[in-house]
């Protein structure tokens, strides 16, 4: 269990965007409502050069959230000590306001599969994930946030609901949660439950950050809707509605607009951040 006195400063309860290098100048000249930026940890694990220089400049004006995609917290194997070391180094020099990772796996043996892969929710996986979170928090000396995945299929062996699984991880490790409402909508559609019931069962008190983003629509072998987490367009209307629903429970929170593929020009992305700002403006202060 994490020592709560090690908790670093939080992200502001304001809109943030996933940082893309093509927006570097726009962000400094016309950030609009954007108060913080999220960067993928692995993109800044080179030794130097422009990525580091841009981050050093941006941290003067924006709070930074480091979002890992390569730690494989849901992996069957142990966490990669080299990768954990690189993360510790990044967090030490950048001093971000937040570090988050995913309830997923991406590494198998020596291979990195470059996707967030799903895991069953069982007593055994719960223990393993909790151990991994403990290790991360111990190495980084700070509380981390864990993000709910977007699911395309179910595991026959799961015995826990995702919401109970996350709540139990919070209880065991003291970690916080990153609530991705786009992922909630995707998983609920794909696995045939109501997204509102997910939020009602979800431990909203542990939320340290919320994600919104875009998805694509497809269908499965039987013609059932199959939503794909593409991060390549505006967030859909039901996802904005879920954001309102979530914020009503959490109170004002940092809200990130994720747009990683077919990255738009700055005004288009800023418009999404402005929409997040209006959602936040209608939340009664905690």
């Amino acid at each position, binding site marked *: 269990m994490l020592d709560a006195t090690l908790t670093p400063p939080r992200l502001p309860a304001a809109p943030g965007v996933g940082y893309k290098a093509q927006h570097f100048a726009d962000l400094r000249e016309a950030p609009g409502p954007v108060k913080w930026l999220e960067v993928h940890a692995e993109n800044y694990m080179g030794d130097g050069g422009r990525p580091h220089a841009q981050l050093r400049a941006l941290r003067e004006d924006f709070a930074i959230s480091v979002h890992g995609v390569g730690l494989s917290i849901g992996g069957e194997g142990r966490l990669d000590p080299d990768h954990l070391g690189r993360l510790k180094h990044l967090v030490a020099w950048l001093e971000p306001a937040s570090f988050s990772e995913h309830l997923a796996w*991406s590494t198998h043996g020596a291979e990195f599969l470059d996707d967030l892969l799903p895991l069953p929710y069982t007593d055994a996986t719960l223990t393993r994930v909790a151990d991994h979170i403990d290790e991360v928090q111990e190495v980084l000396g700070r509380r981390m946030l864990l993000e709910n995945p977007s699911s395309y299929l179910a595991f026959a062996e799961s015995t826990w609901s995702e919401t109970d699984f996350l709540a139990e991880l919070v209880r065991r490790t003291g970690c916080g949660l990153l609530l991705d409402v786009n992922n909630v909508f995707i998983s609920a559609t794909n*696995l045939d*439950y109501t997204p509102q019931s997910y939020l009602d069962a979800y431990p909203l008190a542990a939320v340290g950050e919320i994600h919104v983003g875009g998805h694509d629509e497809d269908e499965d072998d039987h013609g059932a809707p199959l939503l794909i987490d593409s991060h390549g367009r505006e967030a859909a209307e039901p996802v904005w509605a879920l954001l309102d629903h979530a914020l009503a429970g959490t109170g004002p929170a940092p809200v990130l607009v994720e747009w990683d593929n077919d990255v738009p020009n700055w005004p288009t992305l800023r418009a999404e951040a402005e929409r997040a700002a209006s959602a936040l403006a209608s939340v009664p202060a905690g």
Partner: protein
Amino acid sequence: MLPVPWPLCPPGDAMTTTQAEFRAALLDPARAVPDGLTDPKGEPTSRRFAVYRNNVTVALIDALRTGFPVLCKLLGDQNFDQLARLFARAHPPTSPLMMHYGEALPAFLDDFEPLAHIAYLQDVARLELALRRAYHAADSTALDPARLGALAPDVLMQTRLHLSPAVQLVHSRWPIHDIWRYNTQADAPKPRGIAQPVLVTRAAFDPEPHALTLAQAAWLQAIVENAPLEKAVDAATAHDAEFDLGPLLTLLIQQNALTDISTPKD
């Protein structure tokens, strides 16, 4: 729709799915979807597993396209994607640092029969890897050239030069600098039929390739191996008795490629 947020399966002997099984099916589309993965009604589903298959394949192909833009242009999108798909399945990344993904591509090309007739491809791939390494290399402080100027000629010849971590040397029998330039710059001349080793420097943040003569490449290789200047010049004159160090040394200084020197008394 179900009122609960997860379709709990009936207790009992449900199939388990190991990550080894998941991984094997992920990178081999001929394999069946692992047991124990279902739709919300408990039915088997291939379209749903295909999302993960597709995500991984597309992510790896995209990373290779981003990392090897000139190779992609030389082969055309369709051929490149085919190559990238085969490479990705045979050589998935071995690190979450995707910025370096593709280190094994030149060797893969070496054994890749369908493209064996384009012999310079693997050297172009090596150049593109070198440009990426230079981009992400550690920052360094440039040497004050006055320190070189202050050395007596005999001391200078025994001095060792320290290169910036961004400096890369790519040996080639092919005109890879010309090929790179012809495929990245609008008004570049057509490649000539000459051997072109390439020096990559990074004066600030943008890596820049420079064509070298074989003698210059031999000199730089010796410097990379920490030889004193005299030994490096010997290596160069073995290729070209008229070798003149001046232009390359000036280029290295202008490009902030030297960081320090060790003189014999150090």
